[in-house]
């Protein structure tokens, strides 16, 4: 549908564009900025005065829960929730049942995502069969089926030699490997950051070293194998510093952080609320500050929701017996806008970390506004507000932000020029 978007402040972090102008969409692509192409007769006009137009958000970690965990979420429900959060492209982790370690599972996910049509979905394949860390998954077949990167979640490899070989094999085909660096043994049994709060509550701790020890090893192995690597879900300031040091010595590694890690700390656990049970755990004020600084400086180029919807029962138990994760993709834009509201990031930088940054990290065809590029857009009102939970589309209501009034409101999310969400 030919669409004329009138008078938006267009911010495209990839090109540095930031001006009030018109946008013309045709055939699912961006046809022009400013002046209409000759003979362009719009079928639909959107008055975007006062709104910001940016590339649709790119979220590197959204658990869709399908196949296998339909009680927690479905591809249709979670991609719609993502569209409501301003997302047009997302990556889903391989933690499905069966695990995303065969082309068939990748195809099923892509088919259902296309059918739902709310978001573009880019699956992340399992690096090892059944995520067991022993035998390699068929990475090339998975790539050909549409997997954009490969990871093993928080599950460790059985030993360093197998991991090393997996990285070398991935490097052979220039594939990207995603790390969730957490040492299995140091984290064993832990459910909260090892610090005063966990000690007070009697919760078994996961020390900072669980992340940094694994990260040190992973960075060395990445360097040795020469593989493209992305470090996901950093939780410590020290970890961010190690990424910065690796980048400074020329290692082409990227990193992302869960949005909630930029907002919450382990003190949120003080009433045993299972809504704050996440893995890796919420950490200290100093860690949060370090992660914020790394996002600002560009050491961390991507902010992801790390959306993990759950059924109510999964959170209805004593803290240690609950499942970790927060459902928050549908609040991605307004939650992220709190960082601007609090003066931690300027708006173009925030949008860079939510669009071009993640797209570049995993080489996704997304996250930029250019003539001829897919018309994947987000139109939002920076002066508006979102009452979290007033409407809820995700199957998982496990979100500690429900009830909060957040800055910014998504007005339109467009995928290939089609409105996938209207707020």
């Amino acid at each position: 549908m030919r669409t004329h978007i009138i008078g938006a402040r267009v911010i495209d972090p990839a090109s540095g564009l930031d001006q009030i102008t018109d946008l013309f969409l045709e055939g699912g692509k961006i046809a022009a900025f400013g002046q209409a192409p000759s003979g362009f007769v719009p079928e639909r006009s959107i008055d975007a005065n006062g709104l910001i137009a940016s590339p649709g958000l790119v979220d590197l970690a959204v658990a869709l829960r399908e196949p296998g965990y339909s009680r927690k979420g479905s591809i249709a429900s979670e991609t719609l929730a993502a569209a409501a959060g301003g997302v047009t492209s997302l990556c889903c982790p391989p933690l499905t049942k069966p695990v995303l370690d065969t082309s068939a599972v990748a195809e099923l996910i892509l088919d259902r995502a296309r059918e739902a049509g709310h978001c573009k979905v880019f699956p992340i394949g399992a690096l090892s069969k059944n995520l067991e860390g022993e035998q390699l998954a068929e990475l090339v077949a998975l790539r050909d089926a549409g997997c954009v990167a490969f990871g093993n979640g928080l599950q460790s490899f059985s030993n360093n030699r197998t991991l090393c070989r997996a990285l070398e094999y991935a490097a052979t085909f220039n594939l990207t490997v995603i790390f969730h660096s957490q040492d299995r043994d140091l984290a064993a049994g832990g459910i909260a950051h090892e610090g005063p709060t966990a000690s007070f509550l009697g919760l078994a701790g996961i020390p900072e070293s669980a992340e940094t020890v694994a990260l040190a090893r992973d960075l060395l192995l990445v360097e040795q194998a020469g593989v493209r690597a992305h470090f996901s879900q950093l939780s410590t300031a020290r970890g961010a510093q190690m990424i910065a040091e690796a980048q400074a010595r020329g290692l082409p590694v990227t990193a992302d952080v869960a949005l909630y890690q930029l907002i919450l700390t382990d003190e949120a656990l003080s009433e045993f609320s299972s809504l704050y049970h996440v893995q890796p755990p919420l950490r200290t004020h100093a860690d949060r500050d370090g992660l914020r600084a790394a996002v600002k400086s560009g050491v961390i180029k991507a902010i992801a929701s790390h959306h993990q919807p759950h059924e109510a029962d999964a959170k209805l138990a004593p803290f240690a017996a609950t499942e970790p994760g927060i459902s928050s993709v549908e609040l991605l834009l307004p939650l992220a806008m709190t960082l601007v509201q609090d003066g931690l990031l300027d708006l173009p930088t925030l949008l860079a970390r939510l669009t071009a940054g993640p797209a570049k990290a995993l080489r996704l065809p997304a996250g930029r506004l250019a003539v001829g590029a897919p018309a994947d857009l987000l139109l939002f009102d920076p002066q508006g507000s979102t009452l979290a939970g007033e409407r809820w589309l995700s199957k998982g209501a496990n979100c500690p932000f429900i009830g909060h009034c957040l800055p910014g409101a998504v007005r339109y999310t467009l995928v290939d020029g089609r409105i996938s969400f209207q707020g």
Partner: protein
Amino acid sequence: MTPTAAKRPLQLNDLGQLRHFLSIDGLSRELLTEILDTADSFLEVGARAVKKVPLLRGKTVCNVFFENSTRTRTTFELAAQRLSADVITLNVSTSSTSKGETLLDTLRNLEAMAADMFVVRHGDSGAAHFIAEHVCPNVAIINGGDGRHAHPTQGMLDMLTIRRHKGGFENLSVAIVGDILHSRVARSNMLALKTLGCPDIRVIAPKTLLPVGIEQYGVSVYTDLAEGLKDVDVIIMLRLQTERMHGGLLPSAGEFYRTYGLTTQRLALAKPDALVMHPGPINRGVEIESAVADGPQSVILNQVTYGIAIRMAVLSMAMSGQAAQRQLNQEREEQR
């Protein structure tokens, strides 16, 4: 907001009275003193020929133990019986897969049978909070021990023991020795001692058995037993579970005894009239020498007796706190 500043009004009713007993955290010195005073008065009941008072007549108390216990379970049963309540005790074995569901369903079933009070012991920290908040908000919940978090009735019976033998807390040095990391007793004791005004609380343990951030309790930390025991008035020894020898926390029970075991010689470092306490069950020759456990300074068996009085106090106070809240709610309803 620091954890110690975190208020848990969950266990108080609108009048500030106890309606659940989940943790020492957030309770005032006045309230703790009221528990001790009430327990003192119940101690006389235990000394009488007829050991019953009718405070909980017609009420049903359910002991639900998801973890093994002999002493705590029995003393809770006796406490409820001496208050004339009907008592049911369930030992629920936890299956690892459906722990949460078992807990939820078990308690809802018991609630449906019109139980008035649950005494719950569970292996997960926060289990009693969870039940009070999400499962049975209108039934009084007494924490009989949750994970490593809290064992508030043990904490209070230890305070009663100290007060009865030392008269108060204001000028005391108290040492807590052993596996602080895994001990809910230690956590409850540190909080209770602090709240009641004890000026010198010491914890003594190897670094592998000390939780990170222990300083937040306002205690001084010793890794050397001799140094820590010097001139103390009270020594609280903690039980060392045998599984602590695995995973590198300690080399052996023998080495622990060699470095942290309470022997007659080491006891001599404390004040001559120092009390020796232990929550039980004791491991002779692991954390404590038999001669000390059975010696004149030991009050380990007195603790058991006081435990019944403390549990009577807490059961009766929480039951009346719930009743007061119900009445309050009813009056508000009528005003509307």
